[in-house]
């Protein structure tokens, strides 16, 4: 199992148990570096997403997981490195070609990102109306089938403001698969969900992946739920891949860093306290220094 962060060494140090479809990776990331406001978010990250599998990208909040998804989908440009999706370098594509590629990529945003002025039916119908020029009866059947798949056919005429958080994400999921994409990226799909909604989403992600032969990338910090449906896991922190492997391999990893994250320990290599001057110095009235 690879641990640590020696740049560019991911393939060289790849484990023997590394997914067995190395020649059939849908997404291939090499040397990906991205900074924001002078802070290095991702530092020469190498990563492969195998076709047809559920791959989890986990790590503490603020470690660049969502940024990674935005780089894969071409919403952000990296400082260095490349992202190949289905053989195409995302950041070298023109706008038209990028949009063509995005028709084959779905993304489930953390907020759902439903269009608030359209009802559930119209939200799911939106990408079909934009790109698929279908006769209205066919479109209606397709949308109802997509909604049936996420269990919300009965909510077709509700507005997004009338949905719970879990329902909104299921509608967003139905919309994300409306064009039958080759892959779906899930950005923190379980955050803020009650146990029932979380269970529904967990099984939906796995079932949709298998039934529709999708490739799924799940970005999350909900360890147990994400591990339960993943074929392969990457754990990233401090801009680097700290650990990679199957759920069983990651669970068996005994490095302090991985153990702190997987077991949810409050202190360890990732400190409980944000970096600061000694407490006495602040209490003596010098004031809190703004960084």
């Amino acid at each position, binding site marked *: 199992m690879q641990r640590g962060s020696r740049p560019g060494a991911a393939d060289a140090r790849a484990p023997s148990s590394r997914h067995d479809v190395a020649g059939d990776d849908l997404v291939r990331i090499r040397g990906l570096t991205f900074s924001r406001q002078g802070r290095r978010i991702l530092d020469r990250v190498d990563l492969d997403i195998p076709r047809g599998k559920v791959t989890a990208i986990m790590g503490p909040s603020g470690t660049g997981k969502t940024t990674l998804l935005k780089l894969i989908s071409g919403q952000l440009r990296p400082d260095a490195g490349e992202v190949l999706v289905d053989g195409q370098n995302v950041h070298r594509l023109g706008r038209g070609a990028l949009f063509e590629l995005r028709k084959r990529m779905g993304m489930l945003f953390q907020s759902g990102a439903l269009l608030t002025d359209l009802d559930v039916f119209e939200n799911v119908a*939106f990408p079909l109306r934009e790109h698929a020029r279908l006769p209205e009866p066919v479109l209606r059947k397709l949308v109802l089938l997509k909604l049936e798949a996420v269990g919300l056919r009965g909510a077709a005429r509700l507005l997004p403001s009338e949905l719970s958080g879990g329902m909104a994400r299921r509608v967003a999921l139905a919309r994300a698969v409306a064009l039958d994409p080759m892959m779906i990226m899930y950005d923190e799909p379980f955050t803020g969900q009650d146990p029932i909604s979380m269970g529904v989403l967990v099984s939906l992600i796995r079932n949709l992946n298998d039934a529709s032969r999708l490739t799924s990338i799940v970005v999350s910090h909900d360890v147990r739920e994400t591990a339960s449906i993943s074929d392969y896991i990457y754990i990233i922190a401090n801009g680097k891949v700290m650990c990679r492997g199957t759920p069983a391999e990651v669970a068996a990893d005994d490095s302090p860093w991985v153990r702190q994250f997987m077991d949810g320990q409050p202190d360890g290599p990732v400190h409980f306290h944000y970096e600061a001057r000694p407490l006495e110095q602040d209490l003596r009235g010098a004031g809190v220094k703004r960084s």
Partner: protein
Amino acid sequence: MINALASLGRFGLAAIASVGRAHLLLLAILAGLPSMLVRPRLLVAQLYGVGVLSLLIILVSGLFVGMVLGLQGYYVLSQFGAAESLGVMVAASLVRELGPVVTALLVAGRAGSALTAEIGLMKATEQLSGLEMMAVDPVRRVLTPRFFGGFIAMPLLAAMFSAVGVLGGYFVGVGLLGVDDGAFWSQMQAKVDFHEDVVNGVIKSLVFGVVVTWIALFQGYDATPTSAGVSSATTRTVVHSALAVLGLDFVLTALMFGE
């Protein structure tokens, strides 16, 4: 001293960059015109949002402005025995200046702020990113129809403002203060020139329509995607629009009516 200069420099660079982004956005909005023409329903919806929903405030304001003009005009003109010219004064003031300017200020306050808040919230709730990920250009799909909705609605609203204002002036001047009915209308017809006054007023409205809608859309699209960011963007829309309208009004007036 050095810090103050550095802050000034930073402010200047940020302002220039912002103007650059605004112009790039305008170009992208205009480039979306052909795709909008294919789907006129998007434009109609925005004409309703910007135009029809602003109608009440425009009509009520126009009525009161016209009534005030009638009162003030009568007291000044009657001192020179020219109270019969009240119709000219009311109509010329409205079509040349007050109609386009006050309408633009009202639209900036009602529809412009709403546009900024709507676009800013769409950004904050990732709806614009969602459109991008569905391979739909948010500028063409969301901003272009709103821009042309504002551009078309502005002169129509200004015309209604002026028309209702003339009726307000008529009501006060003729109905309450006893100005001659025939003189009110005939002098207006004789002295208010279609090209000199009406067309120039329409040109002003079109310019204000572009500026107010452009500022509103840019502020929303460029807003920091937080509640505080959207709030300050909405404030900036009203302030920048008001200053731009008043400044441009002076320039346009000097160009149109200056010797």
